[in-house]
């Protein structure tokens, strides 16, 4: 539907689309207001006054820092693992047609196609069957599993757009398999991998459902948030943390968008 640039959109459509967008954005904007709310016991609207004191209070909270550190650590390791495994899988699936190719694509997609609670409870029951104690690594195991598909989707889309003959051209010109990977394949899929990595990081940083099953006593930032949601104890700190989490998750998305502006859309938006 390309040639409609001269037509005007009907008013009703404009209103419906605008209202839909407002519905999506207003609640998130509220978070930014509440973070500066003077009131520290209720969710009273409008806020009786604004202050920046809760930023300092939150800054000095060791439990928030611990949770944040654990989240960054888990997201970094999971992203690294997912980038290696997702790229390998994408390269194998794009490079050749072989028996079982469809099955492997399905296997990669399954962890996000099925509800997260299933991944979570499966891992938990496997850990308990094998008597593996909960640790940072059990969290990573779960996160890396569902992050693979994000990297995989982005890499596969890029491989599809990359002409296969440039690999042959590289070999033809005297580059062995390792040189071809370094000088031709990597530069051509680099931004796609970066985008995949960013999205995987954002996904892992925000994940809570699988984490509740694999974390044991440790708290990632989302788990910390969840505790506060179920049993609110310190409203102002929660408000500030919510604002920080939104900001931290959005940065990778903006960077990923910037990187893919003139190419394919960000693949795997089904997170």
């Amino acid at each position, binding site marked *: 539907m390309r040639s409609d640039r001269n037509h005007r959109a009907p008013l009703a459509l404009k209103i419906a689309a605008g209202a839909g967008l407002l519905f999506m954005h207003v609640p998130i904007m509220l978070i930014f207001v509440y973070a500066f709310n003077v009131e520290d016991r209720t969710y009273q609207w409008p806020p009786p006054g604004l202050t920046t004191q809760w930023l300092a209070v939150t800054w000095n909270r060791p439990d928030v820092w611990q949770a944040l550190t654990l989240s960054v650590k888990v997201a970094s390791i999971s992203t690294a693992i997912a980038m290696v495994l997702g790229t390998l899988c994408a390269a194998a699936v794009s490079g050749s047609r072989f028996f079982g190719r469809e099955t492997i694509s399905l296997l990669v997609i399954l962890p996000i196609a099925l509800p997260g609670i299933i991944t979570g409870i499966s891992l938990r029951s*496997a850990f308990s069957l094998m008597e593996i104690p909960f640790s940072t690594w059990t969290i990573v195991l779960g996160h890396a599993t569902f992050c693979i598909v994000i990297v995989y989707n982005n890499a596969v889309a890029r491989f599809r757009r990359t002409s296969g003959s440039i690999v042959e051209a590289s070999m033809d010109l005297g580059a062995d398999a390792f040189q071809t990977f370094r000088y031709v394949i990597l530069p051509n899929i680099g931004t796609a991998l970066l985008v995949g990595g960013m999205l995987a990081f954002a996904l892992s940083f925000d994940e809570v459902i699988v984490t509740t099953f694999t974390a044991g006593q440790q708290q990632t930032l989302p788990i910390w948030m969840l505790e506060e949601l179920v049993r609110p104890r310190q409203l102002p700190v929660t408000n500030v943390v919510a604002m920080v989490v939104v900001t931290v998750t959005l940065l990778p998305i903006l960077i990923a968008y910037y990187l893919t502006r003139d190419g394919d859309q960000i693949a795997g938006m089904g997170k």
Partner: protein
Amino acid sequence: MTLATVDRSAEPAILPSRSALSDLFWRRPKFLLVLMLLPPVLWLGIVYLGSLLALLLQSFFSIDEFSGLINREFTLKTYGELLAPSNLDIIVRTVTMAACVTLASAFIAFPIAYYAARYARGKWKALFYLGVMLPLWSSYLVKIYAWKLILAKEGILNWVMAKLHLTWLIEAWLGLPVVGGTSLSLSLSGTFIVFVYVWMPFMILPIQAALERVPSNLLEASSDLGASPGQTFRNVIFPLALPGIVAGSIFTFSLTLGDYIIPQIVGTSRFFIGQAVYAHQGTAGNIPLAAAFSVVPIVIMMVYLWGAKRMGAFDAL
């Protein structure tokens, strides 16, 4: 020219090997393929499929009612328990909610996707795209938290309604059976709103992708043939957008089916499947029943995916 003056007759036609491994990759392409596939397949096979099978296996065990210990003998007894009225109630409630959330999401998402696909151009198009992507990727918990703020008794929604002198409307709605409750944040209506808010963005991009593929001359042809805008929409645009709607509904449906956090924070004390799974594996320690419960969304989603595939929805993903 320099190239022409070089005598090439002395150079070898075949160069010596520099890397035996690289040579092996070329001679045995299958070897390289296996080497590349092995790590991801092992990871997913052991960590994911292994766990999934372990879970399925446990759904065929049962729990001893007196000792509370797990009886590792093959039985369908646990699946039988799913059919108990209280459990069946949970399943029906969850599936109904997932269906309602999906319908509402499609309803809200369609105008946004339609405008973005058909009218937004250049900078506006990019803005629309970001306008969808940012909320979609925003923190899940923060989104729920935002609604807790909005739906609170002293929160913004009641404040706005009071200013508009519409408080009676909310009161009347809360007085209704099933959807009503003591307050919005403690009612099924509240759960429904938050579900729609959190999962609706997943519906927009698939619909937009499907609509982008509708050639505009098709619409011109339709109006050329005398169809009113309404007829064009019903007979041309909607059928062509349907695979996109189905593709989007895979997300909204599946995500609602498995969620246990939203109904726990905003809603009544009546369980959804996710909560039942969580409760049975956690405090109750009834892993077999939790496993059997989690098989329900798996089966529903498999049927759903099979149907979606037949409708060609995967091309719109």
